[in-house]
């Protein structure tokens, strides 16, 4: 019951956050030099044509009026229409958001598994070879530009070894399935096409691995540091001094206490990924949210940018909510 109340309270917090974020993004992007209308009218357009286009888009109104109209639309679930493509934002969003979510969720899960395993492994072999290798690996992973890493992986696994599919989106054309959820792994399973599912996974593999390598680095370091701290703590030493077997020490004492510190960092990393996957999407021709937002920014497509900012803010709030709940499950001292 308390958990339900806590979740309700945090979700209610979304309302002021989103209003604040929408105001800030709405007014700030209009401060950036550049006029979207000039980009959509033909080069031969007269001043009258431009004024007509401006009026059609509602951009001739005072900015506060434009905002209230926008807000009114939002309340009815209408994100507006793209200035440059004339497509409803909601349609684009429904198509692109799942693609990005799928990519970064898989990357996050992989990175979590890798960083917990490697971080704890390294900590248990403190200052020995495996620990040093992990530390060096983490630093290298942290310093590699993700687009470069992506290209190198493509070069190796597609070009040279030929075991990965071409970086051309998320499924081979022979394996296409009808879109239901927008999540390709789910849709292929829903369609009952095992071969499509495998194909989708093979397309996911390289971008997911690339992202996971980059985001694992800070998490490995954090897990390793927490695990070292736990192993030097009195509670761990006490359990060892009372003769608990190794497996119990690692699972019941080391892991539980180490994991308790991970959710907050993981949430931050995940939040960053939502806006930060654009380079990877570009390298792997992934038609996700990042590419969409980047193009929107380049052509000053106001509704696109506004929606992107709103989606990112919502995701941050939700991800941190999940992280807090997970943390409370892992650590009885945390009350929610």
């Amino acid at each position, binding site marked *: 019951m308390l958990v339900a109340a806590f979740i309700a309270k945090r979700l209610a917090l979304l309302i002021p956050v989103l209003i604040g974020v929408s105001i800030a993004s709405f007014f700030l992007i209009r401060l950036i030099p550049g006029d979207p209308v000039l980009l959509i009218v033909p080069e031969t357009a007269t001043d009258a044509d431009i004024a007509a286009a401006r009026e059609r888009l509602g951009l001739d109104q005072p900015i506060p009026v434009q905002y209230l109209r926008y807000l009114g639309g939002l309340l009815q679930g209408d994100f507006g229409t793209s200035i440059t493509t004339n497509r409803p934002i909601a349609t684009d969003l429904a198509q692109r958001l799942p693609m990005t979510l799928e990519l970064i969720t898989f990357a996050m899960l992989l990175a979590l598994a890798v960083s917990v395993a490697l971080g704890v492994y390294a900590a248990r072999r403190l200052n020995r070879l495996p620990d040093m290798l992990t530390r060096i690996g983490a630093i290298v992973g942290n310093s590699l530009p993700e687009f470069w890493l992506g290209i190198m992986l493509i070069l190796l696994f597609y070009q040279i070894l030929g075991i990965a599919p071409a970086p051309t989106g998320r499924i081979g054309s022979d394996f296409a399935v009808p879109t239901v959820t927008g999540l390709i792994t789910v849709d292929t399973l829903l369609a009952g096409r095992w071969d499509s599912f495998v194909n989708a996974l093979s397309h996911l593999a390289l971008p997911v691995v690339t992202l996971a390598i980059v985001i694992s680095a800070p998490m490995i370091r954090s897990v390793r540091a927490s695990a070292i701290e736990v192993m030097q703590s*009195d509670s761990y030493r006490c*359990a*060892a001094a009372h*003769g*608990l*077997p190794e497996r119990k020490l690692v699972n019941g004492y080391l892991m539980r*206490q180490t994991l308790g510190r991970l959710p907050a960092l993981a949430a931050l990393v995940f939040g960053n990924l939502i806006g930060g996957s654009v380079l990877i999407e570009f390298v792997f021709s992934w038609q996700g949210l990042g590419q969409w937002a980047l193009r929107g920014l380049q052509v000053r497509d106001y509704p696109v940018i506004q929606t992107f900012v709103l989606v990112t803010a919502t995701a941050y709030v939700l991800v941190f909510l999940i992280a807090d709940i997970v943390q409370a499950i892992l650590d009885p*001292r945390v009350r929610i």
Partner: protein
Amino acid sequence: MSAALLDIRDLKVSIPTPQGIVEALRGVSLHVAPGEVLGVVGESGGGKSMIARTLTHLLPYRAQASGSATLSGTDIMALQGEALRQFRGGEVGLCFQSPRAALNPVRTVGDQLVDRFRAHAPGDGLKRRAIAALAAVGLRAPETLIEYFPHQLSGGMAQRVMIALSLSCNPRLLVADEPTTGLDVTLTGEILDLIAAQARDGDRAVMIISHDLAALTKVCDRLVVMEKGLIVETGATRQLITAPQSPYTRRLIAAVPDVTTRRTTSPESRDGETVMTLRDVEVRYPARFGGKPPPALTGVNLDIRTGDTIAVVGESGSGKSTLSRAIMGLLRPTGGEIRFRGHTLSAMRFNQRRGLRRYMQMVFQDPFDALNPRMTVEDIVSDPLRLTEPDAARRSAAIDRVLVEVGLDPSYRTRRPHELSGGQAQRVGLARALSIDPELVVLDEPASALDVTVQAQLLDLIRRLTERRDRAYVMVSHDLATVRALCDRIVVIDAGRIVEQGATEDIFTNPSSPKTRALLDAAPRLHVDAR
């Protein structure tokens, strides 16, 4: 002498540190017989804990140990692998210092007990055994307690759980490392009795490691005194206390605060000017989820005058700290009135109260927590001085003056806290408080984090300062013995209420409240007739 259960011969432990190799133990030999309670006493850094850590193979990283240690013939130093695991907990039960840190924060008390049963003596009815183990250490309602997490336990309960965990697998030797740290005097006695009782039933033995000589004399058959990694004296408790051979033992004995020491000056100062009055003060902390918690402080009346030295005495959790925070204006009472220098402190906002800070200062319990490690002594002491003395040269002179006043050479100005001993650091804390010549100084257990011999010196300094009677001192303490020699008046506080207040000697000769009597009985003293 009966055959020893534990036999340690010429044990040496050296620990490499960035500052060079530390010889923690320099050839220690001792033995414990079955049924015996051995006390190992000494000040911090004496190497006491290294003995416990050697017995459980928990020495610090890269530490080197040599010598021999056997427990009924088992060579402890040679143990490894599964034999070591069985030995730890099964043969030697180590009871850790500060149980709150040593209990696993994410597992319930019951699960932690069951973990240990499974490791050493698996079988049926583990939950029932866990309940029985908790009941055996005197915990009430053990059926509910097994569902508790460590953070839900009080300090005394946590220590009992710790003991239950150490005993859970029937070790032949129970080693308790500073088992009473952080416990108040009444609890200290109870916990030591419980630990010592483990040796009374047959062939088990107990080793208690502590800096608290007075507490050890109450329960130990034999004492080992350690200084700088060496045993300087060993003997039966009575003999060692009545006829100490080594100068270090004599110093330890002399440092035990004596309940019979009285304040030398008479409390004639009651005509001093009133600095602060508290009328019917109540403090309630906000509840987390609905419900109304009992007040942390209620119905408190107190007058503080210039020249007064008032002791606020109570057990932990009684409301002492809340009272000192209310006096310092660090929290706002939820009821009643506090007046200071003609201002109604209790009605003022935080920012307005801050303006009055220059007239009141506080000295904290742990000097290393209270001093900024990045600042030099000079910066630390001059920090509050900036409020009152804009001129740098005069400020500098004032720093020298106040350092001398607290017994520190002015050459210490350039040092940082880590270059100071505990006693020196607390003197700096005192100097910081006195630098701006406050009218009221609150001392929160100023000596309790220090080693006993240093404690005596610091309390002596405080006594000399208070005897000048130029300002008011409020000293918070759980220990009646130390305040007897220091304070004119004692305020005994229990469960948020003042249960007794009066002149120090009246309280000692004629305590009216049962709480006061309990505190007086629990006061540390050397027991030479107990055994």
